[in-house]
């Protein structure tokens, strides 16, 4: 017991020393701390232990435009806004839709990508009518498709909207028959249908609010990041990224 506790104390001390050095190194260079939630391919996901994707390429380009070096930190999607507010990160880029609710708490840049709401359904059960009366629609909380679904709920009677945190959960619910349709972004819809042959999708609605980079309220960086995005829009870099990660 005594030996064991001595070993534990030793490990403790080693770990504490480890922390100290790591945090010292960070402050030497000018670093753009980037928060992502690497659960949203092709925008950000883990591949071979590295975070990659459309957003990652974009933010690295933005950082070098600002003369900084991007440091990617992965966390859950919910934590991103709290992390911005408490300055744990400088920017959050994670396929985040610009919504008025979020704008109360954080600054957004102009959108760098527009997504189209898309309905995913089970092929066998497809009696796709435009009538959504008494249908259950699954959407991701705070996403563009959620806004679209809310508009539909005003048009048809008895539409029930189920908002969950993660798209994969919605797809599981759909497969179990607990909801009738899942409304998600076009890209995700295509990928989910590739992974699940029983599913199919149809595009609905117009392109609406897009994805923006979030920064802390009144951040000094917002204007600079915005200019970088504007530049990438003009010189076609955003278009290149779309071709690279999303295809035609």
């Amino acid at each position, binding site marked *: 017991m005594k030996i064991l506790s001595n070993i534990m104390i030793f490990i403790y001390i080693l770990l504490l020393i480890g922390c100290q050095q790591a945090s010292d190194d960070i402050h030497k260079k000018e670093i753009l701390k980037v928060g992502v939630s690497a659960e949203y391919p092709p925008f950000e996901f*883990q591949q071979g232990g590295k975070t990659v994707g459309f957003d990652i390429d974009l933010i690295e380009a933005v950082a070098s435009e600002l003369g900084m070096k991007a440091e990617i930190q992965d*966390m859950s999607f919910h934590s991103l806004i709290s992390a911005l507010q408490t300055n744990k990160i400088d920017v959050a880029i994670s396929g985040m839709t610009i919504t008025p609710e979020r704008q109360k708490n954080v600054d957004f840049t102009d959108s760098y990508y527009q997504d189209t709401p898309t309905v995913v359904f089970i092929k066998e059960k497809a009696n796709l009518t435009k009538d959504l009366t008494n249908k259950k629609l699954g959407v991701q909380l705070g996403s563009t498709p959620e806004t679209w679904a809310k508009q539909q709920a005003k048009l048809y009677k008895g539409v029930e909207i189920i908002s969950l945190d993660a798209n994969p959960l919605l797809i599981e619910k759909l497969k179990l028959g607990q909801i009738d349709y899942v409304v998600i972004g076009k890209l995700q819809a295509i990928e989910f249908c590739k992974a*699940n042959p029983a599913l199919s999708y149809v595009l609905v609605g117009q392109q609406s609010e897009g994805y923006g980079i979030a920064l802390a309220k009144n951040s000094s960086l917002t204007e600079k990041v915005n200019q970088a995005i504007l530049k990438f829009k003009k010189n076609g870099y955003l278009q290149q990224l779309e071709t690279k990660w999303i295809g035609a």
Partner: protein
Amino acid sequence: MMMLMTDSIIFIIQGTAITLEYTFIALFGGVVIGAMLALLKFNQIGTPFINAYISVLRGTPLLVQLTITYFVIPSVLNIPVSIFAAGCIAFTLNSSAYIAEIIRAGLNSIDKGQFEACHALHIPTFYMYKDIILPQVFKTILPALINEAIALLKETALISILGEQDIMRRAQLVGAEHYNYIQPLITAGICYYVLTFILEWAAKKVEKVKYDYQRA
């Protein structure tokens, strides 16, 4: 449905090291702080403060405590707190509250006569606890401590919301990458079960040693 690839499964299993790291640090810290709190409370020193400490830490969700440690405290006190430090602090403090009560229950189970005998023999308080009281206490509360260790092992999954790549977070990441949610979660579940199974097995061994020792 497509099967998970071997490298995805290995990627999830690699999270075991991080899960175990948090579990053992929190358990060790929890036992140390918990024992001190229990001894203080048992001797009626600072009881109201300790009661409040235990009550608050047991009465609020660990998720809230973790979020406060990582997001709120650093911005209020203006000190940098890494994910690792936040996790260690939150898990240690939380488990210390539970362990304090477990140890206090163990202390209460010791016959009053033993304390009186120690006083009569002029055994210094430190040695009384170290050599006589606490060894008995730890034998009695071992099953309850193992219970706490198992609960703690699974609670460390909460660190995944801050992005630490433990078993749980890795399962989520694999799920997102492959558009397949259930299989990574089941893999994670198996990892946790194997870990708790090993803990239970070790606890049984220790209990058996203790039992033989008591008979001898």
